[in-house]
């Protein structure tokens, strides 16, 4: 019966799965991450310690997790979609109650010895839950507004909690990532038009409720030169780093803006400025190309998948990945306000590295189980 439908066998052996993994995608991930290690090596003025080494260890650990996730049957992930979402939501609630305050915002909870950032987990969990939800709808149901209310609630709950932390950047990422799943699921375009049409006036309204530092960021984004020593300093110094890099850059470990500490947060949010200062436009475009290939790879996997859950999961995770990349680069170039979004796979940081590798693990799992047929109603 399954063969008649053109699907491959659903019970794959482990060896087969391993052979079927997207080794090209793995290679791309390794290359992009290695660029990150290089920049962290440069940030330490040519020393593998303390950042590059720690990042490499996290990457290694993350890779193991990624393979485990990739080899796990897609149907298990489907089953886990709602529970994962529920746990993530509970953890976000826990942040609200007993979170650790850092940098003026509550973002972490402590579970035993480790600190966890539930908003990072929610980025994946929300995509999984939405993919699961739309997987169970048929075309006609997607067209009906009543069927869109549950997923909107799924978005609204974590978004509200994250916004209260307050973390505007992550909130926007959650909403935008969810929007991509909605779009890919086939929600009609005019509905997006209505939402966007309603969002613009309410954004003005919401502006009034933003924290002062968030309002300031937006204002300074509009005119960074107005406050060169204050909050506009970050954007200004970042643009100087980029601009002075020129076409070929100043050379590895030769960036003056970064090594003389003019560039802020050069290991995390502003790591691209450092890369473009040292390797110039050529280096920047090479990195863009690698990201483009990663995204294209992810989309191709989504299109190739035969189950709606896999398709939506893959396209949603790739979408979030793209948003990370786009917002970070646009921010360091002074195109969008400073929102504190790391450059995926390159910026220094354990949680974001792990989250991204889990995402890629899920995308690979979609590929490995691309021909598995999952009935919309079965689960």
């Amino acid at each position: 019966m399954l063969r008649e439908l053109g699907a491959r066998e659903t019970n794959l052996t482990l060896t087969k799965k391993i052979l079927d993994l997207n080794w090209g995608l793995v290679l791309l991930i390794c290359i992009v991450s290695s660029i990150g290690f290089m920049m962290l090596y440069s940030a330490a003025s040519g020393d593998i310690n303390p950042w590059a080494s720690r990042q490499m260890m996290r990457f290694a650990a993350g890779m193991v997790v990624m393979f485990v996730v990739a080899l796990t049957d897609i149907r298990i992930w489907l089953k886990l979609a709602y529970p994962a979402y529920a746990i993530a939501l509970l953890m976000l609630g826990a942040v609200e109650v007993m979170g650790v305050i850092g940098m003026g915002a509550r973002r972490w909870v402590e579970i035993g010895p480790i600190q966890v950032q539930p908003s990072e987990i929610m980025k994946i969990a929300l995509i999984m839950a939405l993919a699961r939800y739309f997987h169970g709808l048929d075309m006609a149901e997607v067209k009906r507004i009543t069927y869109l209310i549950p997923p909107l609630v799924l978005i609204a709950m974590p978004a509200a909690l994250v916004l209260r932390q307050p973390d505007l950047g992550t909130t926007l990422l959650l909403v935008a990532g969810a929007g991509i799943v909605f779009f890919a699921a086939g929600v009609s375009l005019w509905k997006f038009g209505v939402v966007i049409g309603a969002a613009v006036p309410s954004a003005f309204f919401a502006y009034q409720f933003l924290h002062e530092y968030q309002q300031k960021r937006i204002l300074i984004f509009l005119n960074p030169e107005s406050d060169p020593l204050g909050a506009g300093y970050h954007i200004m110094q970042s643009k100087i780093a980029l601009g002075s890099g020129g076409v070929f850059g100043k050379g590895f470990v030769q960036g003056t803006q970064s090594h003389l500490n003019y560039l802020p947060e050069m290991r995390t949010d502003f790591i691209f400025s450092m890369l473009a200062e040292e390797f110039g436009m050529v280096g920047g475009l090479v990195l863009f190309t690698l990201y483009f290939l990663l995204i294209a790879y992810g989309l191709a996997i989504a299109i190739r998948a035969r189950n709606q859950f896999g398709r939506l999961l893959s396209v949603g995770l790739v979408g979030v990945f793209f948003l990370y990349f786009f917002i970070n680069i646009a921010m360091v170039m002074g195109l969008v306000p400073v929102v504190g979004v790391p450059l995926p796979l390159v910026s220094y940081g354990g949680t974001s590295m792990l989250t991204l590798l889990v995402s890629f693990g899920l995308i690979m799992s979609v590929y490995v189980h691309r021909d598995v047929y999952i009935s919309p109603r079965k689960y």
Partner: protein
Amino acid sequence: MSTARDKEKARLFTRRALLLGGGQAALMSVLAGRLYYLQVLQSDEYSMMADENRMNIRLLAPLRGRILDRTGTEVASNRQNFRVVLIREQTEDVEKTLDRLSVLVDVSEDDRLKVLKETRRKRGFVPIPVMENLTWEEFSRINVHSPELPGIHLEVGEKRHYPYGNLFAHTVGYVGAVSERDLRNLEPDPLLELPGFRIGKSGIEKYYDTPLRGTAGTSRVEANAYGRVIRELSRQEGDPGEDLELTIDVRLQNYAVERMGDESAAAVVLDIHSGDVLSMVSVPSFNPNSFTTGIGVKEWEELRSNPKNPLSNKAVTGQYPPGSTFKMVVALAALEAGVITPNYKVYCAGHTMLGKHKFHCWKRGGHGKLGLVDSIEQSCDVYFYDIARKVGIDKIAEMAEQFGLGDKLDLDLYGEKKGLIPTMAWKQARLGERWQVGDTFNAGIGQGYVLTTPLQLAVMTARLANGGKKIHPRLVRNKFGSVDGLDAGSVPEEMGISKSSLQYVLKGMYDVVNGRKGTARGAKLDLNDWEMAGKSGTAQVRRISKKERLTGVLKANERPWRERDHALFVAYAPYDNPKYAVSVIVEHGGSASKVAAPMARDLLAETLKLDPVGNAGPKSAWKLRGRDA
């Protein structure tokens, strides 16, 4: 299970996924465009900004020019200033390091608190001064123990030093920190903004500050965002200041200061041919070294409240009635105007009448009948009342001006005073009163409105001694741009006074010292076969009342110091081949002949012994065989 539905779902998904991909690619190309804009189109501008960020220009202070005396001895020099600084980030415990340091050298509680306060205020890598002006012993002791003193560094800077202390406090002056007012008034120079930079605050140091200062060097350094210097990129050394050579002889200066002792006095010794100021003394003085590092409040108050006024340079800022030292000018005015001949005689009865007013001679019984030479020798006041009246105040003033009185002599010092030579017009304009004959009487004996400075009196004497040549005093032998000075070869302007008139006046001065009845016959020069000529003068500080005249004037040492007369003496030597002139004023010194004259004689004797000008002066100088006149 509906395959058709699934296929439709897949097609819709594929379409949407491709749309998403297209959108993402479009956004990526926006980023690439922005990258091109920043890194190619605006690259130059941002490169410049990056350089502005990292490069810093630091000024290098030039070495200040030295000031030398005429023999080449340093009177203002730069001395190494050993100091200790602390760099906080290099020590774990600032208190502990300071404790260890105070075992080696004496760190005062104040210094300690100051350092601790600074360490909290400044960034960790900024050196904080702990102590300055260490001795070599202290310096090397700290050096030996440096391994136990993390964060402690030794630095060697330059500091202005005046090896002769108070000898040159008034002429050379001192340097000090740049004040807000200096910044407003001086020509802009980036050096002035340099922390710890010192500029001339008085005397020669101030007058020639610009050539002494030199020009700044620069060092381009790369600094990080916190201001820490990473490395030096390039360095351009500045030009050190020029050395300045004074006309003063340090040996003579030293002698003069010692000779004048505890008096409140001033003296100027001149080379009568070149105008070189060989010595210029104002005592008491102060130690300029206290000023270079900032003087203490107590020391400053002491200097200010001292009644002998150590801070002012009396030689150029003190204005005194010249008294009888003015009589040569009056005599020359009368002779040159033709109102008297050298043989003109006057009978002195001890006073003369002007209407109902009685004008006294200093000698109660009177001098009897006297001629010009004798009246100078004995300083007869009545004779000079008479001839002053004959020639008139305006002619006297003209002659006084010729001799450099009543106006600035443009010595290279700030604050020089003009003195005052009154005229009829001056009195009318200034006081709104008519000039009276009595005023002329007073002016004739150098009292009344007449005021002179010791420098002016020395110049007057030099111009008498050199045969009426208008020499100008000078303190500095270098020539800088617009600064006047007499070139070695140039000949001073003749004043146009007849030699015979001069001869009679100088003979009178000769007799003051060497004559039988000379007022200063006790101050005869007793050195080789050199003889000196001079004139005493007494400047009344307080009018003598009628009652005092009747009961007998108290002797000088019987009056309180403040009320005693100023004692003046001007002189030159050798008489037959004049070379050096001197003027001395002792404030409240009392007797000119007993106090000022011996001082002037000793100064001249020392000058002749040292002979700082040597044979440099014109050989065929104006000669006068005194005894033949």
